[in-house]
């Protein structure tokens, strides 16, 4: 980023780093960087697990196989604790969500200006590398989760049963209560994807911004003067501290997104 001309001041530096590589106008604006990075990391996820699965043995497992088995078993146990029906669909979904979101979040740990510089080699001036710091990604994922939740509701209760529940669930089956029941159920249904998406987006966006603010410390570098050295030292120390704390956050947020997907699906299959 800012390969040709350096940013004039700190506000410009941060606004520059918050600009997507866009194509199109208005509603049909495509964030190419988000799409490219998320698809790339999705392929990395698939490729990694496929490569390990191809070489899997029943004998003494290698390091890669042991690692993947650990993740798979961890996810499977978590899903088993919450979701008691057949989990042949939900467990792989949870695994995909966890690993994919984790990798997308982990892009936050790359040095802030490296992706931009690499993009600059291809003549691109804006490149935001964290797909989950774009509300479009998180809302796309959480709306997909909403579809899964509705699918599980329909599967467990049937179309008639689910409609019946939508109109009669919290208060009762009296016709006067149909409208309030339905309204409450819709609000409950829609609040799930919104909170799911905003949680992930807010965490990643704030994390990215704190990295940018820390990067401003070192951006005051003018040479080996006292204040410049202090700024650089501050950037290194604070950047390291925040990055270490951020390892916890990115894992936690990936885990929470995965667990809540499973919990919502489990709730959808319960009868009232």
């Amino acid at each position: 980023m800012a390969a040709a001309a350096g940013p004039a001041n700190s506000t410009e530096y941060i606004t520059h780093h918050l600009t997507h590589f866009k194509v199109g106008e208005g509603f049909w604006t495509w964030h190419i960087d988000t799409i490219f990075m998320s698809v790339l990391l999705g392929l990395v996820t698939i490729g990694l697990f496929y490569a390990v699965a191809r070489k899997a043995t029943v004998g003494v497992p290698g390091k890669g196989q042991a690692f993947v088995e650990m993740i798979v078993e961890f996810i499977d146990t978590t899903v088993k604790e919450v979701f008691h029906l057949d989990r042949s669909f939900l467990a792989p979904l949870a695994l995909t969500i966890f690993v994919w979101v984790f990798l997308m979040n982990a892009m936050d740990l790359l040095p802030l200006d490296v992706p931009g510089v690499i993009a600059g080699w291809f003549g691109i001036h804006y490149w935001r590398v964290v797909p989950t710091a774009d509300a479009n990604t998180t809302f796309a994922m959480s709306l997909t989760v909403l579809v899964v939740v509705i699918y599980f509701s329909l599967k467990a209760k049937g179309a008639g049963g689910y409609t019946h529940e939508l109109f009669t669930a919290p208060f009762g089956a009296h016709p006067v209560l149909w409208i309030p029941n339905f309204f409450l159920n819709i609000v409950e249904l829609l609040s799930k994807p919104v909170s799911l998406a905003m949680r992930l987006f807010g965490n990643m966006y704030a994390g990215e911004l704190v990295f940018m603010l820390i990067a401003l410390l070192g951006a005051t570098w003018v040479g080996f003067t006292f204040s410049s050295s202090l700024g650089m030292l501050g950037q290194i120390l604070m950047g390291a501290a925040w990055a270490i704390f951020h390892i916890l956050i990115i894992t936690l947020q990936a885990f929470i997104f995965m667990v809540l997907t499973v919990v919502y699906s489990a709730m959808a299959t319960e009868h009232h």
Partner: protein
Amino acid sequence: MENLALIAQVQSYTAIALGLIIGLGAIGACIGIGIMGAKFLEAAARQPELIPTLQGRMFLLAGLIDAAFLIGVALAMFFAFANPLLASFA
């Protein structure tokens, strides 16, 4: 000149709002984490064999408690660097 005064006014109100968003959010999140952490330690002291189970849930809840605060921080940062309320002056 009149515009400049108006811009300054919007900026000063925004600055106050940012402080309130981050400060109040931090208070809430810290109280939440504090209560949960205290209860976790209490439970762990009573029944140490439950620690592995409780630890996972504690981290899950810590993420949930932190989320609202961090959404607030993200929103505040957004207003600090690209204030949409100033757009009408541009």
